[in-house]
């Protein structure tokens, strides 16, 4: 209806988003990443055969935001749920959407073994260095010195160890077929992030094994920053601990 009133449509909401209003805070990157995933699913024409496994955390409502068949897993268990789906229906596309508390803390066993089995699923991993939903507690990815509600004096090695690098860790496993770490702080790196997400889904379509895209993301609310400050903080601090780049890529023949 709107189309008729305008001369040219240059952008619209991707079909794979339901149109339900996001529950995310201003400046949070979840919304951007949701959109990128939906655009990729539309472009690949796989909406009718894609199953989504949402996590526990801020993105728990992801199953409502995507216009796809979907469920919510228990905290950290999304890779196991996705494994069950994929083994039951191997010709469907199955992806999990998980935060850092979900994937890198309570769900380490499930993600490590899904990757190690070369489970032919895709994981979108949102790393914002904090537990968002529960109000800003320390995550396994919280940076050293970073203040959170459970590290009020800043994270220390002595008390909490080092921030865990999941992409590096999972890239040591032979079942991993494609792993890349990206961010969405600028239009330019958002385009790169979309390319990575598309490649991850293509990896699954080709049946090459486990694929994951880690997206460094902001949490302005729990970081206590404006969205612009948060993006800057991410670029200046998180990328040092979590370098961007491709960690595994078996899509280029030979494997």
């Amino acid at each position, binding site marked *: 209806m709107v189309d008729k009133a305008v001369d040219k449509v240059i952008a619209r909401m991707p079909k794979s988003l*339901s149109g339900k209003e996001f529950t995310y805070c201003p400046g949070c990157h979840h919304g951007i990443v949701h959109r990128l995933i939906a655009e990729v699913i539309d472009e690949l024409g796989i*909406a*009718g*055969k*894609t*199953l989504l*496994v949402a996590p526990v955390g801020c993105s*728990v409502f992801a*199953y*409502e935001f*995507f*216009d*796809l*068949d*979907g*469920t*919510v*897993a*228990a905290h950290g*268990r999304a890779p*196991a*749920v*996705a*494994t*069950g*789906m*994929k*083994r*039951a*229906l191997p010709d*469907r596309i199955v992806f999990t959407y998980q935060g850092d508390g979900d994937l890198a803390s309570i769900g380490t*066993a*499930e993600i*490590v*073994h899904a990757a190690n089995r070369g489970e032919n699923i895709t994981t979108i991993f949102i790393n914002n260095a904090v537990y968002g939903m529960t109000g800003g507690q320390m995550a396994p990815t919280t940076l050293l010195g970073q203040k959170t509600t459970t590290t009020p004096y800043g994270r220390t090695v002595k008390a909490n160890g080092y921030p865990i690098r999941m992409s590096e860790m999972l890239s040591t496993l032979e079942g991993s077929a494609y792993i890349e770490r990206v961010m969405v702080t600028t239009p330019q790196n958002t385009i790169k992030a979309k390319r990575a997400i598309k490649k991850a889904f293509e990896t699954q379509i080709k049946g090459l094994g486990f694929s994951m895209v880690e997206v460094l993301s902001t949490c302005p609310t729990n970081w206590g920053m404006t969205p612009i400050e948060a993006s800057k903080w991410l670029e200046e601090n998180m990328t040092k601990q979590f370098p961007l780049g491709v960690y595994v890529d078996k899509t280029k023949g030979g494997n």
Partner: protein
Amino acid sequence: MKMLFKGTEAIAEAAIRAGCRLYFGYPITPQSELTEYMSRRLPEVNGTFLQAESEVATVNMMYGASCTGRRVMTSTSSPGFSLMMEGISYMAGAQLPAVFVNVVRGGPGLGDIQPAQSDYFQATKGGGHGDYRMIVLAPHTIQEAVDLMNLAFDLADKYRMLVTILADGMLGQMMEPVEFHEMRDLRDMPQKEWALTGASDHKPRKVTSFDIDPYELEKMNLRYQATYKKVEENEVRYEEINTKDADIIVAAYGTMARIVKTTIRMAKEEGIKVGLFRPITLWPFPYKRLNELADTVKNVLTVEMSYGQMLEDVKLGVNGKANTPFYGRSAGVVPTPTEVLEAIKKIMVGDLNGR
């Protein structure tokens, strides 16, 4: 044709014949032969076997597989069943059908690997969080376990509920001749209009145990409760032996009930008429029939391989109409028929002398 089968393996074969083609599991004694049997048998029937990294992963793989509408099961033993409680609660909330086999061993904690019935509370009263129920079936022979396996999958699909076969190390490890039902045609499996298969031919479907709005979550809970009520009305199963004219009724299930059957014969030789009330569904528990029987005797003796768990349901059923003494041994120790007979005699001394 009857075949000689080990309990765990017979249960596995029965599950496959009931249309189960998906098995996820983690090795644990005394049921690992079930897992092993599935690993060699499922590929023969184009099924999928996957050894998970833990029981926590196992139950979540079942969650995912069940979301697609296909029949799925696992088997485990007590400590493993404890680990599955998280996923069981989520599956109950998402109304996902699946079948669990718990070959119970001595507990608590690491316990031992001998037969026990001490997971009764966990299976019948919850174990996971939230107001949920699970259908619990208790076979007392391998043949019955085979027959109940078929029923278990049908009940799970019919009510969109979890069904647990509560066995024990004795049933799992013994061998008996059994007759299997025919291999069921997968084309006859129930169609599930809620299943997640990709939204190409339906509007996007959501399967969750979640609603942030308490009034909506209450509606979901009331739906579960309505289902549980239907199950309570329609699916109560039990067996009675010699309960007419009995001097005393013994309530026992599973392996313990089988032992009591021997006690009944021994008691008969001594002139004591012992009746057996054997619940086959531990949930829903046959309260109503037990209450009727309580009118006919002075004592309903509960005998368990635990320190008195089903006893609480027996008391609810009897509701004060008769005495409810208890005899049991647990921790992997199995009461003998003679020990049960001794317990009966102690209770009945007054009665017997009076005749």
